[in-house]
């Protein structure tokens, strides 16, 4: 039987670990009684790798080698607009990996984002172990509700590198609802408005008879505290330009200092109606004189700066209500979580929209970790008579003729889910059909992300549209997607399993683990790290220090495995080729 299952809220700005035992949920706090840990990783001048508070504290003196907000990059493709926007905003350097994933310049070496994330997770793991006085192996980890399969998988991989087995990935708002409803007798519909450092999510749940049923989720992957901060940062630069006539935006090294100042002003304005900013000797002008900044920001001005951002979140709330097919007034309780939810402008807007004052029942920074721990406890203790009915995070389907996305399982479908659809050929005597499986967060934009593909060969020579292929999608409670296609004529079947725990090869994980353990001086990173992000594992790569004497005999095995990965990556590459994908169309 499993020992403890901890709950981890892996946040953009701050992270938190919690555990539930017979006495209920509690946060596992580290030294100095800090209940949350800054989501920061750094490489010190001495070449030491640090994470959490220590990394946060040295951020100002070491901006180029301090890494924050990397959750925004996890599981993302390099050439996406979001990645590019983010790259412009941060002080450290990011670049593309061979497989179009994102790598971070870590003291001159390129390191995949999962590896950075793993360093933070390792810190959280050891914090939990310290607090509990025993080893921790299992965890429930939370992600934003809008995270796609790739991002969830990358999060799992990061935990695996850190030596944790993820028993379940759940959505942050869902976790908050669990924290709120656990141990209470409720019959309520709740809305969880989650605005954190980098992301916004809204989830609607029905809680009754101990069952937490997710009704709908909606969110924006790039709307959070950072955006609010950047509004203030922009305003500060503007004001400096106004008074001093210099544009300091191009000076990268100033960014962390200004960002921290902006953050401080934002926090101050939740308690006070006005906040002062004083940044003496911020920079040198060309004539040698110093620029001293003194600014004043009040609540009204702040509300004005972020008004459209707040409005955007409310629109997304409406979207969630529409998806669940319920009215705003049928929501009994609204729960605000995430650091940004302290902002009064946001609280007022939410109350206005739902007509209920936000609940103060849960702690905005700790509820998610506690909820994750609750889910771990619910799973572990079978006798609690409580259950979470979770949903699919995105639309799942196939890419058909004209590079269009055809949904098979809709977003917000309760898991375990299963759905089937009939597809057919578009050319006469077509010999094979390529099935490209994809996910989409928003059908209205006709955007989708490929998850994998497979070929159904040896079709009978028949006119277009007469070959009937039944495609079945299944998603289980672990989020594993299975797709099978059956040729109704020949009864031939092809299957593919898209994702799930243990996706990353054990060997590759061990290599990265070893590296993270031995990081001293310039971190050792090689192509093995990229396996995580789906590039081929090169056979000539072996760990710098052999793990055991059997390491060399394992080598042929590595080569063999690598060819398997190769095929996957080949298939990945060819997804940009719309050729064979044209040959398929949905049929009613």
């Amino acid at each position, binding site marked *: 039987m499993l020992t403890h299952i901890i709950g981890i809220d892996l946040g953009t700005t701050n992270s938190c670990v919690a555990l539930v035992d017979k006495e209920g949920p509690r946060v596992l706090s580290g030294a100095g009684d800090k209940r949350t840990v800054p989501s920061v990783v750094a490489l010190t001048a001495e070449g030491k790798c640090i994470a959490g508070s220590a990394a946060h504290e040295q951020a100002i003196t070491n901006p180029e080698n301090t890494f924050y907000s990397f959750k925004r990059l996890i599981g993302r493709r390099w050439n996406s607009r979001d990645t590019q926007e983010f790259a412009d905003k941060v002080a450290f350097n990011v670049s593309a990996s061979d497989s179009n994933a994102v790598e971070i310049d870590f003291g001159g070496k390129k390191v995949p984002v999962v590896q950075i994330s793993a360093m933070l997770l390792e810190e959280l793991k050891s914090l939990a172990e310290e607090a509990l006085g025993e080893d921790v192996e299992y965890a429930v980890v939370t992600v934003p509700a809008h995270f796609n399969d790739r991002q969830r998988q990358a999060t799992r991989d990061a935990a695996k590198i850190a030596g944790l087995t993820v028993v379940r990935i759940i959505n942050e708002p869902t976790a908050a609802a669990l924290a709120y409803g656990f141990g209470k007798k409720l019959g309520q519909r709740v809305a969880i408005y989650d605005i954190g450092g980098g992301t916004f999510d809204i989830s609607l749940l029905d809680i009754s008879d101990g069952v937490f049923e997710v009704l709908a989720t909606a969110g924006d992957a790039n709307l959070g505290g950072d955006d609010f901060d950047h509004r203030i940062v922009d305003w500060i630069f503007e004001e400096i330009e106004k008074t001093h006539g210099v544009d300091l935006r191009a000076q990268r090294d100033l960014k962390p200092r200004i960002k921290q100042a902006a953050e401080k002003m934002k926090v101050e304005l939740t308690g006070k109606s006005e906040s002062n900013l004083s940044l003496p000797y911020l920079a040198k002008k060309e004539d040698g004189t110093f620029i001293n900044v003194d600014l004043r920001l009040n609540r009204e001005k702040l509300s004005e700066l972020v008004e459209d951002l707040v409005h955007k979140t409310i629109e997304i709330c409406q979207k969630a209500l529409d998806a669940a097919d319920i009215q705003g*007034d049928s929501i*009994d309780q609204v729960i605000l979580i995430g650091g940004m939810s302290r902002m009064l402008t946001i609280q007022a807007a939410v109350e206005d929209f739902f007509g209920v004052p936000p609940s103060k029942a849960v702690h905005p920074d700790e509820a998610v970790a506690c909820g994750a721990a609750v889910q771990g406890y619910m799973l572990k203790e079978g006798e609690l008579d*409580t259950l979470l009915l979770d949903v699919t995070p995105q639309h799942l389907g196939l890419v058909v003729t004209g590079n269009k996305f055809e949904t098979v399982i809709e977003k917000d479908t309760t898991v375990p889910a299963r759905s089937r659809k009939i597809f057919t050929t578009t050319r006469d005597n077509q010999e094979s059909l390529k099935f490209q499986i994809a996910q989409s967060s928003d059908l209205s934009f006709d955007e989708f992300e490929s998850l994998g593909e497979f070929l159904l060969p040896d079709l009978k020579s028949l006119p277009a549209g007469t070959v009937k292929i039944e495609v079945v999608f299944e998603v289980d409670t672990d989020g594993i997607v299975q797709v099978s296609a059956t040729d109704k004529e020949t009864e031939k079947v092809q299957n593919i399993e898209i994702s799930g725990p243990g996706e990353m090869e054990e060997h590759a994980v061990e290599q990265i683990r070893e590296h993270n353990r031995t990081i001293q001086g310039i971190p050792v990173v090689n192509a093995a790290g990229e396996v995580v992000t789906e590039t081929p594992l090169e056979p000539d790569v072996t760990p710098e220090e052999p793990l055991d004497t059997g390491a060399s005999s394992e080598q042929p095995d590595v080569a063999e495995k690598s060819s398997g990965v190769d095929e996957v990556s080949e298939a990945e590459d060819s997804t940009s080729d719309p050729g064979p994908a044209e040959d398929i169309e949905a049929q009613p």
Partner: protein
Amino acid sequence: MGALVEERLKQKPKLLKEVDVPALNLDEEVLSILAHIDGENDCEKLAVLMKLSQEELRTKLALLEQNGVIGFEDVAPVAKSDAKCDLTPDEQNMIIAQEKVIAEGNYFEILDLAPSVRGADLRKAFLAGSKRFHPDMYFGRKLGDFRKRMEIIFRAMKEAHDFLAEDDQRKVYAKKIIEESGLDQVVMDEVEDEDDAESEIEMDPERRARLELIEAQRKKKDERQERLEERRRLIKDKRRSRVPAEGNLKKAKDLHEMGMEQLRAGDLYSAAASFKLASTFAPHNGEYRHQFKETQDKAVEQKAIGIAETADLDSSAGNPGQAAREYAQASDLVQNTERFAVRAAEEYFKTDDYDAAWFYANRAVKAAPRSKKSRLVAASVLEARQDYAGALVHAEMAQSIDKEDANIKKMIKRLAKEIR
């Protein structure tokens, strides 16, 4: 869970020959049960012989059956228990029993409910069922192939819940089930009376208070509305009861005559306009008003028929898109008849626009619930939308109108298969 095992009381367990009993290391009591199994003693008798309660015997026999030691007459032995599964025999039996219900039962039976169930009880049953069959409730245990089997059960329960959660749908379905099963009228009435009696078991007090407030406000609003209407009616009646001035009467009479003439000439729209004017000059004259209404309806119908004729041409010219839009226009003009709606649904169906087709098919069914044609259209559209359960309801209604139609029979068979 008991049901499946209970029916075995009268069954006779048999030893399965290929089993190597000594290798199983069974305890003495179980061995002595085995000694009494001679193919003649039924379960009830065995319990008496062994001085065991039926419950105890049942557990022991279930274990033996799962290990492939014994089998029951006419009942295929349960699949040999999976080494990868550590569910208890009771849990396995519960799952097997539920699988049987799902294979054979209707939506109500799947959730263990009576057809007269109300909204809140339905949800309760679904939640209780989820807690029994959702694989997460057995987390950390080896489930073997029972994982997939539980997933199938859970999805079936979810489907049943979602289907029955729609009040109108549930009532139609319940009626069908009751008719089939020959239950008495009382149950039927219960289904129908249920309307506003949504039960409020264990509702959050805050929520109930809010709902009550909303309800009170709505009532107030309704009352206000009623008073307003009453006043309007009074004013109207007064106006009507007052005999108008001589001049107006004359005008009204002239207008009416003009209307009659226009009517004879076939200009229904102008005729309707004239009758309306006549009615305003002589509001007390019910005849004028009646004639206005009648003529107006006829005029609209005529227009709709004209549009439908164009649609007929488009349809036979092989242009279903155009035809569908025209039939839809006609149906929008005259909504309370099935004929345009059915045609609109049929044409939209041809263009694969099943959403639009369903809209009009639904209208056709509402206008003519006892029409085979509208039921068939509705069934076909729903089938195309893969709502097989919904389609089945309509197909069976169609069959109740025409019992001989072979096509309907085929369709029902097909749908039943799909649902399974």
